[in-house]
């Protein structure tokens, strides 16, 4: 096991960030999924030894992470928030940190890492001039420069445009293919899906689920969905859809109808035909339940 | 797919007055200041000095002793606002610390969090912003200067040995108010100027502290080496103390003045520093892009 957490707790004053979290993380890429404020960053900071747990036990690569420099050099950390020596160039920054981690030839290590994250063109510019995507890549570069065994990436794709996002996803998968273990956190399900099949879901400091992504996806589809359809003939459309038992609740509002269905796949399949039969022009279809927050609600209520 | 009307629709609601917006900025800063433990402790320290005098006056009254420091209005001047040794005034130092802790963050924090763009993209002018910050800091510092002074005035009214007329008591109260303003307004302007120089609150605080003490040290060293009196005019503390001292009507034993000059020189120096500081902040605020 790469990480073994046993009844881990962390509180800040009266705020409980982590509540009895028991989790084991193995080799490969593991996603840590949760909405903002779920406790992902707190967990990651405890894993890398920046923060001390308030209770419980944690082992990373078989050792306690708190105040353990010997373990720290085996881990690469990409923080969520930016923190740079802005007066340095990207290359100097990565080289300096590589040397602090005990790498003999810091410059060579920096060159390799910068090439791997495709930052060579701007590596000799001051960090203060970097864009958001460049900063993310720089953080990744310093995390891999000293060739750690275990990478901890805290929301590495946040704020990146789609092109940078794709590049970083490919990079992270490449690092895992080299044999590194990666723990990556995010609040966006499809980002995690693009990286890995193995995820752990946290919500309000608790571990609510762990397993394969496909199981989480099935949960989204299994739990009752609320769908809003904006149309010129809401009552006629609702009458058509309610006739065959796929709809358990209907509510009308001005120019729209809210429907609740336990079988969203079947419902969506029937909707076009029902609209045609009712002669209803459908302007908009939306669902507040087709997202992660709904999954968390479902999981925690279950 | 629903397509929504993207054409511009003018705001038809009512705006509040400019004064209401300035008040909002002041209120926001004061709420933060009064919820800071350090600032509250320093405020309590300022009030504790008054409590000390309360006890001393009480004993003097019970023993029917006439303490010389309580005669005339010396208690306010030498006993409180200008209490100190070698022109190092205790109360000025408390005020300096309060200004450094609360005032240094007023503009520096907004710069650090890129909030200036947010402010000026609303119906808030640079002048409103500057007025709001200046008034907030001045109001807070006045709590620490006029508040204890008012309490001391009440204590002296109730337990002081002198029999004074209503007019004389009101005159003392007016002098306390004026002294407080003299202590507070130039400090507020200077601290805002330092706060606008940097994104880091602690650097602004240290710059202000450096200026405050450097002026005193320069004055002390130049007096000691040149053996002349004019270096006293360099000390910020002495200028404010002297000008404040002059606010009080002279009754009985007036005690030694801080400086051997009138009000013109100290007022000119403090006044011009205040105005220049505010102008400097104003200039820096005019170019938000450069600041960011």
């Amino acid at each position, binding site marked *: 096991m790469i990480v073994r957490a046993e009844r881990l707790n962390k509180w800040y004053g009266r705020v409980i960030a982590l509540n009895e979290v028991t989790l084991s993380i193995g080799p490969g890429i593991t996603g840590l999924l949760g909405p903002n404020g779920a406790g992902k960053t707190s967990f990651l900071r405890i894993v890398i030894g920046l923060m001390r747990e308030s209770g419980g036990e944690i082992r990373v690569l078989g050792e306690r992470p708190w105040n353990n420099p010997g373990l720290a050099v085996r881990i690469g950390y990409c*923080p969520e928030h930016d923190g740079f020596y802005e007066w340095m160039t990207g290359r100097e920054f990565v080289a300096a940190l590589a040397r602090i981690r005990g790498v003999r030839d810091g410059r060579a290590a920096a060159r390799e890492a910068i090439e791997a994250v495709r930052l060579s063109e701007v590596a000799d510019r001051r960090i203060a001039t970097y864009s958001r995507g460049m900063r993310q890549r720089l953080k990744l570069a310093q995390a891999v420069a000293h060739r750690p065994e275990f990478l901890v990436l805290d929301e590495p794709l946040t704020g990146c445009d789609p092109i940078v996002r794709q590049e970083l996803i490919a990079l992270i998968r490449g690092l895992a293919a080299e044999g590194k273990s990666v723990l990556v956190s995010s609040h966006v399900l499809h980002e995690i899906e693009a990286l890995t099949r193995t995820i752990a879901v946290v919500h309000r400091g608790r571990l609510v689920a762990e397993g394969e992504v496909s199981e989480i996806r099935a949960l989204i589809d299994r739990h009752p969905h609320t769908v809003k359809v904006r149309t010129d003939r809401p009552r006629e459309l609702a009458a058509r859809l309610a006739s065959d038992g796929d709809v358990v609740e209907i509510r009308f509002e001005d120019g729209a109808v809210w429907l609740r269905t336990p079988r969203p796949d079947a419902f969506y399949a029937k909707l076009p035909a029902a609209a045609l039969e009712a002669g209803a022009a459908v302007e908009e279809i939306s669902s507040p339940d087709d997202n992660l927050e709904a999954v968390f609600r479902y999981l925690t209520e279950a | 797919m629903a397509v929504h009307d993207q054409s511009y629709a003018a705001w038809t609601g009512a705006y509040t007055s400019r004064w209401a917006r300035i008040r909002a900025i002041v209120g926001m800063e004061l709420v933060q200041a009064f919820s800071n433990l350090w600032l509250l402790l320093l405020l309590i320290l300022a009030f504790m000095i008054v409590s000390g005098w309360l006890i001393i006056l009480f004993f003097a009254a019970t023993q029917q002793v006439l303490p010389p420091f309580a005669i005339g209005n010396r208690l306010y001047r030498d006993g409180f606002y200008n209490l100190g040794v070698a022109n190092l005034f205790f109360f000025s130092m408390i005020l300096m610390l309060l200004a450094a802790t609360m005032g240094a963050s007023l503009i520096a924090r907004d710069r650090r969090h890129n909030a200036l763009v947010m402010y000026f993209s609303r119906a808030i002018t640079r002048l409103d912003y500057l007025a709001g910050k200046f008034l907030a800091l001045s109001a807070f510092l006045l709590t620490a200067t006029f508040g204890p002074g008012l309490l001391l005035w009440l204590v002296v009214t109730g337990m002081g040995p002198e029999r004074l007329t209503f007019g004389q008591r009101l005159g003392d109260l007016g002098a306390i108010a004026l002294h407080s303003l003299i202590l507070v307004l130039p400090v507020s302007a200077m601290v805002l100027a330092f706060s606008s120089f940097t994104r*880091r*609150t*602690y650097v602004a605080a240290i710059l202000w502290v450096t200026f405050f003490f450097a002026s005193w040290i320069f004055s*002390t*060293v130049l007096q*000691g*080496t040149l053996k002349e009196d004019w270096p006293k005019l360099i000390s910020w503390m002495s200028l404010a103390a002297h000008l404040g001292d002059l606010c009080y009507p002279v009754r009985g034993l007036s005690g030694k003045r801080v400086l051997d000059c009138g009000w013109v020189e100290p007022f000119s120096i403090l006044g011009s520093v205040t105005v220049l500081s505010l102008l400097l902040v104003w200039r820096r605020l005019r170019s938000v892009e450069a600041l960011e």
Partner: protein
Amino acid sequence: MLRAAAAFAGLTLRSLASGKRAPAAAILLLLPAVLALLAATLGRKAEAATVFHHVVFHYSLGFMVYLLSIVYGIALSSGEIEDGTVGYLYLGRLPRWLIVGVQAGVTALALTGLVFLSLLLTALASGLAPGEGPRLWRDVGACTLVAGTGILVALPFYMACGLVFRTPIGAVASALVPTLFWELLVTGWPIQFAAWTVTNNLRGLLLVLLFDGRPGPLYKYVKNFRIPGYEEASIYLSVLAGLFLVLAMAAASARSIEGKEAR
């Protein structure tokens, strides 16, 4: 580990000159020379050696040493935490206590070097006044030694303040309050406690190294207490420096870096 420590020392040295703290430090270091220049050129009664002694006594040792140490002490501790760069340092090869030790050592040495330059400029500026000037290398060297001792005591204390308190401004407030009230006020009071201030102990060292044991008019404020002798002051300051350094190291080892999510 040695390589990592050397790399970290280099990084610390480079970061001393970054940001707004460098201009703030430059102002602090140039002010005594400006003050000496003013004193030397504006007065007819000023003597060169007197100007130098006054500036060093009141400004360099009584004020500049503390402000310089606060600027860098807070920057190295609380400033790094606020910037988010401390995470990179604590995830390196060096244990936290060694990080603090390297930071304190490198910074103290660098600041002492800068103070030497400042004092040299001050001595040269003082020399413009009439009369016998300071004994350039001997007096500047002696004052640098004393100032360096002051920095070695003050810097770890302020680093400890920065590591114990959550925010930089809280750290500055906690650093300034004891400094101002203990070092600036109590130092000049006619009470026994005054002998225990760092400033009076530094002045005790200065008395031997600069004034050859002869207290002149600058020491007239000493009433009801005795300025500590050379040995006494050395021991006291060494103990304080060690204590504050251990305090800073312990604070770093115990400090949880909780980040923005904890606020």
